[in-house]
C-alpha cells in the first residue's frame, strides 16, 4: 500500500515514474501534467473535427461528409473545445502553478484533486466513445430541446451528451471547491490577498464561477435526462412544461462559462506582459477588481443569447444594457495591459508574442461582442457565421492564445528546459495568420447571410471564395500546431536548461528549481511584497536543501477507483440498466468509504 505517510528525507524525495505512481499520484504538479497532456490530446481531436468541418465547407455543394456526420462534428467540436480542451488546459495551470504562486506544498485536498482529474478523463472518454457507436452527440453544444427531446432525437447521441456533461460537471465542481479552499487557506505567511499574482486571482474568480454556474447546467441536464429517460415533461409544452426554461438555465450557465474560459487566459497574460515589459503590471488592484466585476456581472447578461426568442422590448433592452456595461471592466483590463508595456523594455519572446496576439484578437472579438449586445443588430446576426467569427476571436484568439502564452512561459518551470524560440515564433505567426484567415472572412460570410450549422451551401450565394480562404486559414492553424508538437519533441532533448528563473520574472514560482522538487519549497517562504523577486525588500532566500525532513503524503488509488464508479454509473445510465448503475454506485460508496478512512495526511 502506497498510502502511509512517510517522513521522507527531502534529498531522497522522488515520486517514482511507474504507471502505478501516476495512477495513484496526489501531487498537484503531476496532476497538472496529466490535465495538460490529456486536454491537449482532446484539443487535437477537436481540431481535427474542425478541419473536417472546414474541408466540407471549402466549396459549395460539397459532399465530403453527410449532414448527419456534420451535425455530430460541429456538436463534438464545440463540446470538446469548451469542456475537454480549454477548461482542462486552464486546469493544468491551476494545478501546476497556483500552489507554487501562493507558496504552498500542495492543494488543500490532494486526493480530491486526483479524483477531479480521473472524472474529467473518464467523462471525456465517455463523450468520445460515442463515435465508436456511430452515435456522437448531434444537437449542438447548446443542446436545445425540443430538438434534443426523445421525440426528435431518439438515438443514443443525446444520451451520451447529457450524461457526459454531467460527469464532466462533477470534475469541474470538485476542482472548484478544492482551489477556492487552496487559495484562501494555503497561502504562505505574508501572502495577503492583494499580494496574490493576478493569475491566482483570476483562478479564484473562475472557480467561484464554476461552483455557482455548474449547478445550474446540472439542473438543466437533469431535467432533460429525466424527460428522455423517465417521461417527465419539463420541456414538453403539451404537458405543461416550458421549452424556454432550458434556454434560460443553459445560458445562465453559458455566459458565466465564457468567463470561465477567458479569465484564466487573462490571468496568464497579466503574468506574461509585466515579465517581458520589465515593468510591474499597471494598476494591479484595478485589474483584480475588474476581473471580479466581470465575474459578478457575467451573471446578469445571459438572455443576450436569446434575443431571437422574442422576450419583449423591456427584457431585450435590459440585457442589451447589461451586456454593454460588461465591456467596461473588460476594456479597463485592456488599457491596463497596454499601459504595462508603455515605457517598458519590451522583449518579443514567444510567450510575449502570444500575449500580444491575445490582446489584439480579443479586442476584435470584444468589438463584435458589443455589436451582438444590440438586440436589433443581433437579430440580423443570430445563427449566422458572424457569431462563429465572434466566438472564435474570443476563444481561439483569446483563450487558446492565452493558454499558449502560458505554455511557453511556464514550460521551463515545468520541464526545466526552454522551448525553441525560432520554432515558437513560427508557431505563433502561422497560427496568427491562420486564425485571421480562418475567422475574419466569417464576419462577411455571416453578414451576407450564410447560416451556421448547415452542412453545405449553394453556389448562388457567391460565398465560395470566402469559405475557401477560411478553410485555408484553418489548415494553417493545423500546421502551426504540428510545429508546436515538433517543438515539444525537440525541446525534450535539445532545449536550453532553464535554471530557476530564465525570464527574470517576479513571482514566487521562480524562486525554486525547475522542475520543482516534490515538496516545492524546501522551507515555506515568508512573503514580504507583491513581486517578491523584483522588490527592494528581499524575502529570505529559499535554501537548495530542506533544513528539516518534510512530510510527503503517499499516493492513493481510491480517487481513481471512486471516479471509475462514476464512469460505471454513467455507462449504466446509457445502457438503461439499473443493475450496472447500482454496481457503479457500490464501487463509488466503497471508494469514498476507503478514501475517507485511509491514513493520509497533507
Amino acid at each position: 500500500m502506497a498510502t502511509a505517510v512517510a517522513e521522507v528525507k527531502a534529498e531522497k524525495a522522488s515520486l517514482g515514474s511507474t504507471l502505478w505512481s501516476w495512477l495513484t499520484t496526489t501531487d498537484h504538479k503531476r496532476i497538472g501534467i496529466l490535465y495538460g497532456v490529456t486536454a491537449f490530446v482532446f484539443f487535437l481531436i477537436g481540431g481535427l473535427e474542425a478541419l473536417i468541418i472546414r474541408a466540407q465547407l471549402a466549396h459549395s455543394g460539397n459532399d465530403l461528409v453527410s449532414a448527419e456526420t456534420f451535425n455530430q462534428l460541429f456538436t463534438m467540436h464545440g463540446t470538446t473545445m469548451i469542456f475537454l480542451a480549454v477548461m482542462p488546459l486552464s486546469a493544468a495551470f491551476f494545478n501546476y502553478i497556483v500552489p507554487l504562486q501562493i507558496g504552498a506544498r500542495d492543494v488543500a485536498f490532494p486526493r480530491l484533486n486526483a479524483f477531479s482529474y480521473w472524472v474529467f478523463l473518464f467523462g471525456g472518454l465517455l463523450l468520445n466513445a460515442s463515435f465508436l457507436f456511430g452515435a456522437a452527440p448531434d444537437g449542438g453544444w447548446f443542446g436545445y430541446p425540443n430538438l434534443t427531446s426523445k421525440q426528435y432525437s431518439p438515438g443514443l447521441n443525446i444520451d451520451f451528451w447529457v450524461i457526459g456533461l454531467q460527469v464532466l460537471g462533477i470534475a469541474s465542481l470538485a476542482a472548484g471547491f478544492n482551489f477556492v479552499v487552496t487559495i484562501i487557506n494555503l497561502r504562505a505567511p505574508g501572502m495577503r490577498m492583494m499580494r496574490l499574482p493576478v493569475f491566482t486571482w483570476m483562478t479564484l474568480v473562475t472557480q467561484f464561477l464554476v461552483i455557482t454556474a455548474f449547478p445550474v447546467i446540472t439542473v438543466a441536464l437533469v431535467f432533460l435526462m429525466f424527460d428522455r429517460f423517465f417521461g417527465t415533461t419539463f420541456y414538453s409544452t403539451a404537458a405543461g412544461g416550458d421549452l424556454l426554461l432550458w434556454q434560460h438555465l443553459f445560458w445562465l450557465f453559458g455566459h458565466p462559462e465564457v468567463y470561465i474560459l477567458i479569465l484564466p487566459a487573462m490571468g496568464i497574460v497579466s503574468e506574461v506582459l509585466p515579465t517581458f515589459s520589465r515593468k510591474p503590471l499597471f494598476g494591479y488592484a484595478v485589474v483584480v477588481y475588474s476581473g471580479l466585476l466581470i465575474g459578478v456581472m457575467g451573471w446578469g447578461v445571459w438572455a443576450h443569447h436569446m434575443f431571437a426568442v422574442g422576450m419583449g422590448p423591456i427584457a431585450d433592452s435590459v440585457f442589451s444594457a447589461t451586456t454593454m456595461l460588461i465591456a467596461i471592466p473588460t476594456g479597463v483590463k485592456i488599457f491596463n495591459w497596454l499601459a504595462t508595456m508603455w515605457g517598458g523594455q519590451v522583449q518579443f519572446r514567444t510567450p510575449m508574442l502570444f500575449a500580444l496576439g491575445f490582446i489584439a484578437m480579443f479586442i476584435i472579438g470584444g468589438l463584435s461582442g458589443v455589436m451582438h449586445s444590440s438586440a436589433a443588430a443581433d437579430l440580423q446576426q443570430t445563427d449566422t457565421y458572424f457569431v462563429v467569427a465572434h466566438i472564435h476571436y474570443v476563444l481561439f484568439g483569446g483563450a487558446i492564445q492565452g493558454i499558449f502564452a502560458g505554455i511557453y512561459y511556464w514550460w521551463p518551470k515545468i520541464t526545466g528546459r526552454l522551448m525553441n524560440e525560432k520554432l515558437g515564433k513560427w508557431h505563433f505567426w502561422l497560427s496568427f495568420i491562420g486564425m485571421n484567415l480562418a475567422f475574419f472572412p466569417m464576419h462577411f460570410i455571416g453578414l451576407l447571410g450564410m447560416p451556421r450549422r448547415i452542412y453545405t451551401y449553394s453556389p448562388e450565394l457567391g460565398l465560395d471564395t470566402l469559405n475557401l480562404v477560411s478553410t485555408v486559414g484553418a489548415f494553417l492553424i493545423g500546421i502551426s500546431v504540428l510545429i508546436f508538437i515538433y517543438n515539444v519533441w525537440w525541446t525534450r532533448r535539445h532545449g536550453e536548461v532553464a535554471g530557476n528563473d530564465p525570464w527574470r520574472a517576479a513571482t514566487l514560482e521562480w524562486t525554486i528549481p525547475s522542475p520543482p522538487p516534490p515538496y516545492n519549497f524546501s522551507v515555506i517562504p515568508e512573503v514580504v511584497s507583491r513581486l517578491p523577486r523584483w522588490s527592494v525588500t528581499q524575502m529570505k532566500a529559499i535554501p537548495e536543501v530542506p533544513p528539516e525532513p518534510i512530510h510527503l503524503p503517499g499516493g492513493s488509488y481510491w480517487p481513481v477507483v471512486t471516479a471509475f464508479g462514476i464512469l460505471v454509473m454513467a455507462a449504466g445510465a446509457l445502457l438503461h440498466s439499473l443493475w450496472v448503475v447500482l454496481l457503479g454506485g457500490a464501487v463509488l460508496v466503497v471508494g469514498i468509504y476507503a478514501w475517507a478512512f485511509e491514513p493520509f495526511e497533507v
Partner: protein
Amino acid sequence: MAHAHAAVMQPPAAAEPGSGVYNEKLGMWIFLGSEVMFFTALIGSYIILRFGTPHPWAPPGVILNIPVTAFNTFLLICSSVFMVKAYAAIADGKKHFLRTDPSVPHDWRLWRWVDGGLKFWFLMTILGGATFVGIQVYEYIHLAHNGFLPSGIKEGTHFGELVAQGIVPAATAGIYGSTFYTMTGFHGFHVTCGVVSMLYLFFKKVLPEKYSEHDYRGVETIGLYWHFVDLVWIILFTIVYLI
C-alpha cells in the same frame, strides 16, 4: 490527557493570511454555496413552470398528504436539533452514550439527570434522517400506487378519477408529477447521502471515540451539511406541499 492533543485543533500556524477556518469546514461552506445554486435553479425552475403556465395547478392537499409530510418535516427539524445536541456534547468532551448526571439530584424528570453524549445524539440524528427517508419512500409508493407518477397521472386510478372529475387539472398533471418527484427526490437523495456519511462516521469515529473536545471537525462539518439539508426541506415543504 486534556491537553495532549491540543495541537490538532489549533488554527494553521500563521493565522494571517489563511482564513483561520480549517480546510474541511471552509470546503463544506464552499460546497454548500454550490448546493444553494443547485436548489435555487431547481426551485426557480419550479416557480417559472408553475406560475408561467396559463393553466391552473392542482390544489394543495388533494394528491399530497400534508399531515404525514408535516410530521416528517417535524422529524427532520428534530434531527437537526439532535445534531446541535451532538455538537454541544462533544464540544464539552462528552463522548459517552447516556449517563446519569451526578450533579443533578435524581427525580422523576428524566431529562434532568440523564445526560446524553455524542454517541447518543449522533445516533438520534441518524435515526431521524433515516426515518424521514423511510416515510418518503412510503409516500412515493403510496402516490405511485394511486396513479401519481413523474410523467403525470395515470387514467383509471384513484388520482385518475380526480382528474376525470376536474378536481385536479389535466393540463398541468404532467409537470406537477415531474416537479414533485424531481425536487423531493433530489432532497431525499441529499438526506440519504447525509445518513450514509453519518453512519460511516458513527462506526469509524464516534463509537471508537476518535472525537474529543479538542478535535471534532467531522461532527462540525457534517453538521453544517445536515442543517442545510433541513433548511432546504422547509422551503420545499412550503412551496411544494402547502402553497
